[in-house]
């Protein structure tokens, strides 16, 4: 369990990193927190000629509210995000979901950019990016661009990032008033990859009808997926008149999740329904509470 030989560079500037990525392209790999890459290298399941360690690039760290967007540097550690006040206030779902990532030792090293770029189909951050409608900002020597999370996640461990591109930051939109969120996972043990996980973000209008809803499941396909038909079915509907159990069952009936040594695909599909129902129920309760001035004051 020793990695195959590789060359290693640890630039301190983004431009240096981009130059290396440009030079080595698919023979290079960015080393972020290393919580997935290092085991894969040690098991020789992955091998690269050149590692580009971006841990020393100060510009990739930090959390900043810019207008209505929370901009989080790609190399910001999960543990930082978990504890950050701005994140708790403006993207509480992100803070809540972080607690499901591994154990604190892992979160001390793991980064948001690394997690999203790795695109593990059972991981939390790609799913939360999708739920909140986040974008990532990426760069190469040829320039910068932004990619919507839905466009970024292609399949298992695969994104639409080009080999020369470096993920710079994650741009999380702040959801407005009367929004509520929920995240939950079913896992074999605390901290394990989810057998099935999900997240929901909803906004209610003044009449407690659904103004906006994103519902995402992960661990059920080759990437985190939005339950678009469910979202469409509840859009504009008064919350109290929704048969959430039935809607969740319909929305998950066509899933074909993978089987592995931890759980069968049939199990994953089966529990996706109660999980989805629970997510929406919690998100609705929280959205109502978020719109209640007395509750707001109490917070």
């Amino acid at each position, binding site marked *: 369990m020793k990695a195959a030989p590789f060359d290693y560079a640890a630039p301190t500037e983004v431009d240096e990193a981009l130059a290396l990525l440009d030079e080595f392209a698919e023979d290079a790999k960015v080393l972020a927190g290393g919580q997935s890459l290092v085991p894969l290298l040690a098991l020789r399941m992955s091998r690269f000629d050149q590692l580009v360690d971006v841990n020393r690039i100060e510009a990739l760290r930090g959390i900043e509210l810019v207008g209505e967007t929370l901009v989080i540097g790609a190399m910001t550690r999960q543990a930082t995000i978990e504890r950050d006040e701005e994140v708790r206030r403006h993207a509480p779902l992100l803070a809540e979901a972080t607690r499901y990532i591994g154990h604190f030792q892992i979160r001390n090293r793991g980064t948001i950019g690394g997690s999203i770029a790795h695109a593990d189909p059972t991981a939390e951050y790609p799913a939360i990016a999708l739920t909140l409608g986040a974008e990532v900002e990426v760069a190469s020597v040829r320039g910068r661009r932004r990619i919507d999370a839905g466009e970024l996640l292609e399949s298992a461990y695969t994104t639409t990032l080009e080999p020369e591109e470096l993920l710079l930051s994650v741009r999380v939109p702040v959801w407005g008033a009367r929004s509520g969120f929920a995240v939950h996972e079913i896992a074999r043990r605390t901290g394990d990859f989810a057998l099935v996980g999900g997240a929901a973000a909803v906004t209610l209008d003044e009449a407690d009808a659904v103004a906006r809803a994103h519902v995402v499941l992960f661990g059920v396909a080759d990437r985190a997926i939005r339950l678009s038909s469910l979202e469409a079915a509840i859009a504009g509907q008064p919350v109290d008149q929704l048969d959430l159990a039935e809607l969740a069952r319909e929305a998950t009936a066509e899933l074909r999740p993978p089987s592995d040594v931890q759980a069968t695909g049939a199990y994953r599909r089966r*529990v996706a329904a109660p999980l989805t129902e629970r997510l929406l129920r919690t998100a609705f309760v929280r959205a109502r509470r978020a719109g209640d001035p007395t509750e707001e004051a109490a917070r």
Partner: protein
Amino acid sequence: MSTVEKPSAARFVGARVQRREDPRLLSGHGQYIDDVRLPGMLHATFVRSPLARARIVAIDLEHALAVPGVVAIWDGSALNGDAATPLWDWAGEGTPFPEVRALAEGDVRFAGDPVAIVIARDRYVAEDAAELVDVEYEPLQAVVGRELAEASTGRAHDGIDTNVAWSAASPTDPALEAAFAASAHVITETFRQQRHVNVPMEPRGLVAHWERGAEQLTVYASSQNPHQDREYFARVMGLPEHHVRVIMRDVGGGFGQKIFRTREETAVALASRRLGRPVKWIEDRQENLMAANHARDEQMTLRVGVDADGVITAIHASHLADVGAYPLMPAMMPGFMALEVLPGPYRFARYGWAGKSVFTNTSGISAYRGPWMMETVAREIMMDVVAREIGVDPAEIRRRNVIQTEDLPYTTPTGREYDRISPAQTLEAALEEIGYERFREEQARARAEGRYLGLGISTYIEPTAGAQGPTGIEAATVRVEPSGKVNVLMGTGSHGHSLETTMVQVVADQLGVPIEDVRLLQGDTAVSPYGGGTAGSRSAVIAGGVARISAIKLREKVLELAGHLLEAAAADLEIEDGTITVKGSPGSSIAFADVARIAYYDPSRLPEGMEPGLESTSRYSAPPATYANSTQVCTCEVDVATGEVRLLDYVVGEDCGVMINPMVVEGQIAGGVAQGIGGALLEHLAYDETGNPLAITFKDYLLPTTEDVPDIRYVHVETPSNTPGGHKGVGEGGAIGAPAAIVNAVADALAPLGVRVTSQPLSPDRVLAMIDDARSA
């Protein structure tokens, strides 16, 4: 019940003395295999078969040998001949056994089978080269699956024309059948237990150093028994025993996996002798999960007859074990042990059994903490099945059957002789501690709310300190050095089980010296007397017993000398805190250290005929077995929408005789319970139908973490054994009792749904499937 006389100044035995090895281990100064660095040391890795069963057509080493830094690569045909004998051979009448060689030769028999050893300047280079060893395989039909092996058209081994490794049964017994016929109820059920791995934190490993001038092999071993290792290496390498030295420093756990030396370790020793240089091999986790020995993988069918009140009238037990390709112990062991121990804590007269073990193309079976524990799994789950079937409370059915104090001495149907046990007391103690009646009320309320709570009980007798052959005796040399400080030399080892604390407690009490003045030296065959090492929960009983005997013997000499010096009778003296005083005359005393100095440096002051120095060596031959008993009770909640199981409360009532250190006792229980929780809920070294292992990293082989193990509460009952310190073993009971307690708790929770739980692990998908099956039935 008799009580064992405690030493006159028992300050340490029975106290929660802090572990003396902890400062070293917790500050990162433990000395494990990977900490051993010798000048000129090389590193080994293995090329392993990716297939479960195949013919080796060709092995091409050319590219691998060209990697800079590679020193040697040998396959089986090149290296195996260096061994003087087969590595082990458990063949007997009707029990075939394959020839065990260091490396595969001609064919491979499980995925992970070592095919070649690569020696290089470091492990990275060795692995680079191992990748380039080109082995051409011709796949053969693999024998996989405990229940499929016997009928398989494939053969696990060349040269053995059956996959049945052992098969036996008790003689036909008309009285047994008559007892079944007369029973009010006869219930039959089969219980299955999946394949586990011991998973010591430190995997297997060694540094072997062949010293050419001295013609000596020195082995730094990650072992449970250095003296048996010495005998092993001497035999397989054709060396006289006094030219082999085995040094066992800190060992990061073994749990049975490190009792026997294995093929890879042998290959490393042979390689060192060829090269005349030290060679290190430290197994990585993937190798450990794939190719170190596995455990459990068995099933037991019980037929139980009870009368109308639920009193057992007869039991027939039938066991089937998959022992893999190269079991480390005789193929009969898992079944024979389980069947023999099965009567456990209950009174019944009629018993019959049948056992069978099969070879498969999987990693071989070895011992794992309570290697016979299928008896408790099957019997205790069955007790609940019977209780539900006939409508008796599960605590009550145990009360009606458990051996009472007035039944003692009691001989089981398999001839085990119990005395000085207290299974009824530990059962009641555990039930009381968990609040049995209160829980039943809480459970009823929860059910009314649609929540599923359950409680499970597991009662058992733990045979400990089995004393036969190499493990029958233990020795201790207690040596007071000239300064009065005390070295204790024993054939045990530092293994995580606290002997550096407990043995010192025993000796310090007898010698009346401060505990800091006593140190245990162990694990080095050049230093310590022959000992059986760690296995079968033997240390407290046998090692603790002999430490006490040897210390008492030395105490007598100390007192004789002190009496001579103080002109008092030895019987009138007492030793306390390093000072020897004439009872009742506090002014008349001498320091323990002064006695020691005189014993070594001033022989003219010794009594006539007394040998100088202060040292005693004793050997103790223990009784065939010493029985501990225990009941574990736990509660859980099952989420019937997701199949998730959450343990809520956990109690262990235990009688391991006189406790040397209750903290150590509880640590032993806790560790075993954690492993049992792993087995009941999480761990499964699954193979697919081609013999490909599916859980060879910790992502897939799931161990319980601190978050999965509830706080455990303990109730201690102390019934002294008839051994020198009154101790009983306690090393395995936690692991033996836990799976049945947990399975019973889950089954109890789901009882309203008609679920019968008969297999593990209780993963969420399996729990949901069981609920579905019960609903559709």
